[in-house]
């Protein structure tokens, strides 16, 4: 996905009508029995597996009705955090509070949380309808009511016609939709999504992504969503928490996360980021990069050689005989083309330009790459 697309998604996540039209679902809050949102609070969660600190004093506040995505590479602790909230793991230290009440000692079966798993989790011996009704059955809801509500929920996820089918007769996307209906059937206080789309193909993933977001917004269910896919996180979540080594590096709205990353890790994990050799001066407030001195974003080193972190769309490039780089390749991304440029000093950078302008920049063309005036994020030098 191009950086522009990420930025566009990040800016346009709140459009339930458009999403609903795309997903083709008819949603009624009565069908799923929406309840008032629940607040979730993770306080200093720490979990140690042998020598590994899977979670290291992680804290996160989720407002009622909010969808927060935990994003991070494998092993960063995001799934452990979700499983602690679900009650499948315990924290060595810290607490999980639901509406201000500590639920650390409450077993998973009594937490009232709906969960959709990464792997297909439907019960193979039950039809789609029986799967959806299972949670209601455990709550001793009468047979007729159970069947009616299961039918409503299946209708809500667009699978009314598949009610009598068994999991093996459903596609992967259909199974995950049934799993979503099953999780919502119990009117959960919190919806937990553990990479529910990762096993699906790209097209189905996109549809289901929109459908989940639409339902979540309509029902106002507080949702914690774990993913390693930045596109999913940025396009679905109200806020995204980027995790690294058991800690939250930054929690912010998608657009802010993209445009004002707090750390070099966040900057490079979300979207594409160039590292340009630079020199920090002025007590850490100014940085000289590509021959230009611009303000340095706060929070970096105070002086010396550093890397300036600049997104491809924030760099400018133009053909110039005596420029500072040579075009080494182009990738067509639709409206924009990503141009790869090797700068003097062998630094490779990616620059996004309009596809029309990129036509004049064939590989081998001498170009001038320049940096914007605004403050740039700096990080310890690794670009050598």
């Amino acid at each position: 996905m191009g950086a522009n697309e990420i930025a566009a998604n990040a800016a346009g996540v709140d459009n339930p009508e458009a999403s609903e039209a795309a997903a083709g679902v008819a949603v009624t809050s009565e069908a799923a029995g929406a309840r008032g949102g629940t607040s979730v609070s993770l306080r200093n969660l720490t979990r140690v597996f042998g020598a590994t600190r899977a979670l290291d004093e992680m804290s996160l506040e989720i407002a009622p009705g909010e969808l927060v995505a935990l994003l991070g590479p494998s092993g960063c602790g995001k799934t452990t955090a979700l499983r602690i909230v679900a009650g499948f793991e315990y924290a060595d230290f810290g607490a999980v509070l639901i509406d201000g009440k500590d639920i650390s000692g409450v077993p998973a079966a009594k937490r009232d949380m709906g969960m959709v798993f990464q792997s297909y989790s439907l019960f193979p011996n039950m039809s789609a309808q029986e799967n959806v009704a299972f949670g209601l059955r455990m709550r001793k809801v009468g047979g007729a009511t159970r069947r009616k509500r299961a039918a409503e929920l299946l209708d809500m996820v667009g699978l009314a016609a598949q009610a009598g089918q068994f999991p093996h007769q459903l596609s992967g996307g259909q199974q995950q939709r049934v799993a979503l209906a099953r999780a919502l059937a119990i009117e959960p206080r919190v919806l937990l999504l553990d990479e529910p789309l990762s096993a699906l193909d790209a097209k189905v993933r996109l549809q289901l992504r929109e459908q989940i977001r639409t339902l979540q917004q309509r029902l106002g269910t507080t949702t914690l969503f774990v993913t390693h896919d930045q596109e999913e996180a940025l396009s679905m979540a109200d806020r995204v928490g980027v995790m690294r080594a058991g800690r939250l590096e930054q929690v912010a709205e998608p657009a802010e996360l993209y445009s004002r990353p707090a750390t070099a890790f966040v900057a490079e994990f979300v979207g594409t980021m160039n590292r340009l050799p630079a020199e920090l001066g002025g007590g850490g407030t100014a940085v000289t990069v590509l021959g230009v001195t611009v303000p340095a974003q706060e929070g970096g080193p105070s002086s010396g050689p550093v890397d300036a972190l600049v997104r491809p769309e924030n760099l400018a490039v133009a053909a110039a005989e005596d420029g500072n780089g040579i075009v080494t390749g182009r990738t067509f991304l639709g409206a924009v083309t990503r141009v790869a440029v090797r700068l003097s000093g062998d630094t490779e950078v990616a620059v996004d330009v309009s596809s029309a302008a990129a036509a004049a920049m064939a590989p081998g063309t001498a170009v001038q790459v320049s940096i914007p005036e605004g403050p740039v994020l700096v990080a310890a030098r690794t670009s050598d």
Partner: protein
Amino acid sequence: MAALTRAIESEAGTPPRPNRRPRSLPGWRWAILLITAVYFLLPLWGALRFSGVSAFGAVISEAGFGSSLWLSVRLAIVTTAITLALMVPTAVYVHLRLPQLRRVLDSITILPVVIPPVVLIIGVLQITRVAPSLQSSPYLLALEYVILSMPFAYRSIDAGLRSLDLKTITEASNSLGAGWVSTLWRVILPNLTTALLSATVLTVALVLGEYTMATLDLFQTFPVWIVVNDQVSAQVSVAASLLALFVTWLVLMLITLVGVRNSRRRGGGEVTLFTAAAPQTIGN
């Protein structure tokens, strides 16, 4: 049993074997089938000729026939019940909570195959000293048969559990509000039907055919009665053996067919007696 212990297509997703037809030597396949058929059927045919058709009618009226058969059936039921009650929760618990112990359990459950029956009998007698009435009861045999059937029952259940994403469906069930008993009863057991049937079939077959332990413990089960009766009327004894063989075979086929039908309905794929996870299957 041989007919029933054919190769297995795994529920767990063993890739279907390529349909290779040895076109150059098709005759060999028929020859092997013929030789195998002769090997198994010739003794049966010989036994049938020896006993004669009239002996079959006489079997039922023989003294001890009904009581010994009924004892064997009761032992089969009790043994199966104890075996499943012990092995299912154990296997589920080990799969979910102590997966590192699976190899240890594999090794333990194979022990009854290598330990001589007389040693097992002495062991059971030592343990049941606390209950003398049990020692004189034929149900003592059921305890011994539980040990004997353990390798087969455990492997069937273990294979069934491996074919499920046990951790995920258990957690899904828990998150929907089901406690451990409900999860076991409503989610895990219904998905283990084939494995349970397989364990049942093997246990029943073992109990109905076991002779050594019964005779050492001085109980007249059906196999013991056949041997004893052999000294009175060889023809009737052979007819009883054949009858037992056919009835057992029919029961086992019936159980297998029910399992296959249920499995197909739920998408379990091709299922045979030893159910899933072929590498763990024991040949018998």
